[in-house]
């Protein structure tokens, strides 16, 4: 079976800084794959390189069997859509939700826009009442729903998710994560998801890769984290950090 996403020894260099130092990755169709690490580990850069938003120096990226060049064609963007961290920054402030959703349809020449917009809004639980609102009239969670609707409207097979819930409150985060799981199940999507939160990644993904300083530290399945079967100190540190603050004996006064 061809992989949905196959990345081979990818290097990304910004000026002289090597952000990615030969990272390889393989995601099967329908799989949900997580990337974990601290800021500066290169996890977002990897995602952006796949979307064509980072300067690739060497290595190859293959999506659904097609090896990508520096210029991506329209068909690529129909297949692969990205959802960003900050829903406040990723929606045009002077366009209504309706206009926002029409844009990708116009670019790709879809005819039945009306019906698709209605369906997309319905699918993310917003309903038609939100259609003619502006981004500033929506809450953070609603904005992220619009961003998801905009990504889904082209019926992609792969979603790239860059910290999709880290700007949201805990209760809203739960709603958005549930929505993402639901659309993935319904549309048999492939997810590549970046997060610094191990708990979110184990909840959402079957397999994951831990990254540090532009390199892959460890490849794990979600269950390894649950049973704490990790081999690298770095991953262990991340795991400990997700348990919350623990007062050591010397700190107790």
């Amino acid at each position, binding site marked *: 079976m061809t992989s949905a996403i196959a990345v081979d020894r990818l290097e990304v260099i910004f000026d002289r800084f090597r952000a990615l130092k030969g990272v390889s990755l393989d995601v099967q169709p329908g799989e949900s794959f997580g990337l974990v690490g601290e800021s500066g580990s290169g996890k977002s850069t990897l995602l952006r390189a796949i979307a064509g938003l980072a300067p690739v120096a060497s290595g190859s990226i293959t999506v659904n069997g097609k090896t990508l060049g520096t210029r991506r064609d329209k068909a690529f963007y129909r297949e692969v859509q990205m959802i960003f961290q900050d829903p406040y920054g990723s929606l045009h402030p002077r366009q209504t939700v309706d206009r926002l959703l029409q844009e990708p349809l116009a670019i790709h020449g879809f005819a039945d826009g009306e019906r698709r917009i209605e369906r997309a809004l319905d699918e993310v639980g917003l309903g038609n009442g939100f259609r003619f609102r502006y981004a500033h009239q929506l809450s953070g969670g609603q904005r992220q729903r619009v961003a998801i609707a905009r990504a889904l409207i082209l019926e992609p097979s792969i979603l790239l998710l860059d910290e999709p819930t880290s700007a949201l409150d*805990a209760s809203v985060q739960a709603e958005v994560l549930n929505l993402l799981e639901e659309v993935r199940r319904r549309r048999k999507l492939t997810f590549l998801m970046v997060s*610094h939160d*191990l708990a979110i990644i*184990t909840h959402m993904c079957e397999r994951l890769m831990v990254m540090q300083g532009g390199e892959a530290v460890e490849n794990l399945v979600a269950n390894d*984290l*649950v049973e704490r079967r990790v081999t690298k100190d770095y991953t262990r540190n991340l795991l400990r950090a997700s348990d*919350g603050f623990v007062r050591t004996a010397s700190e107790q006064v």
Partner: protein
Amino acid sequence: MSGQTGTLLEVDDLRVTFPTRTGMIEAVRGVSFSLGRERLGIVGESGSGKSQTGRAIMGLTPPQARISASKLTFDGIDLLGVSPRQRRALRGNRIAMILQDPKYSLDPVMSIGRQIVETLRTHEKVGKVEARERALAMLEAVQIRDPKRVFDLHPHEVSGGMGQRAMIAMMLIAGPEMMIADEPTSALDVTVQLDVLGILDRLVAERGMGLIFISHDLRLVSSFCDRVIVMYAGKVVEQLKASELSQARHPYTRGLLNCMPKIGADRHPLPVLDRKPEWAA
């Protein structure tokens, strides 16, 4: 200084109101609590009024807002009754505050060392040489490895974790008795987060300070603080000991605890909060 055991801060029926085009909006609606020399957590989601509560105590509420309280005292001083001048003398000296992102709360065009020295010399009469010595000692106390080097760096030259340590150093140098930390670690990486919390925890305990820790992260707060106040829509819905969080009664607290994904708990879909209008009543 008052007795080590006494209450440091008393808040009774605190209200903060903002005038808007569509009428008055009450961000904080009758919050009451008291703080001793302990770690108190205030938890809530965005818009719950937790930050405005902290800002009102600090005296940083925007001028157009109205504050009222039947009691707002710090060590016996009526915070609403004193002159702005006296309030300013308290701020940074006896009451300190740490904000979320060191990128915005440090002066970008001043070296870290100079900022710390400036804080110290605003509140105490010390010579330049002594001030420098004390600033370096303070940088060492927040576990900065090479204080002499960091002293001369500007905020853009240091990482977020280092910046937040410098911020803590700056806030602690005048020896405050109470510290308000508003999401002090939300902008930091998880691993750095714990280091910074560890430093904060040790310094607060050593100096016997009172700490108000404001955060949206219920789990983090409960692992760090002695007592937790949960706020919803400008009101306190529940007050409890951090160790008894698992026995929380209010459906909002329980919902907040429940809706976070946990390693090892296989729950699909995640339980979501079903907000009841009577919680805000």
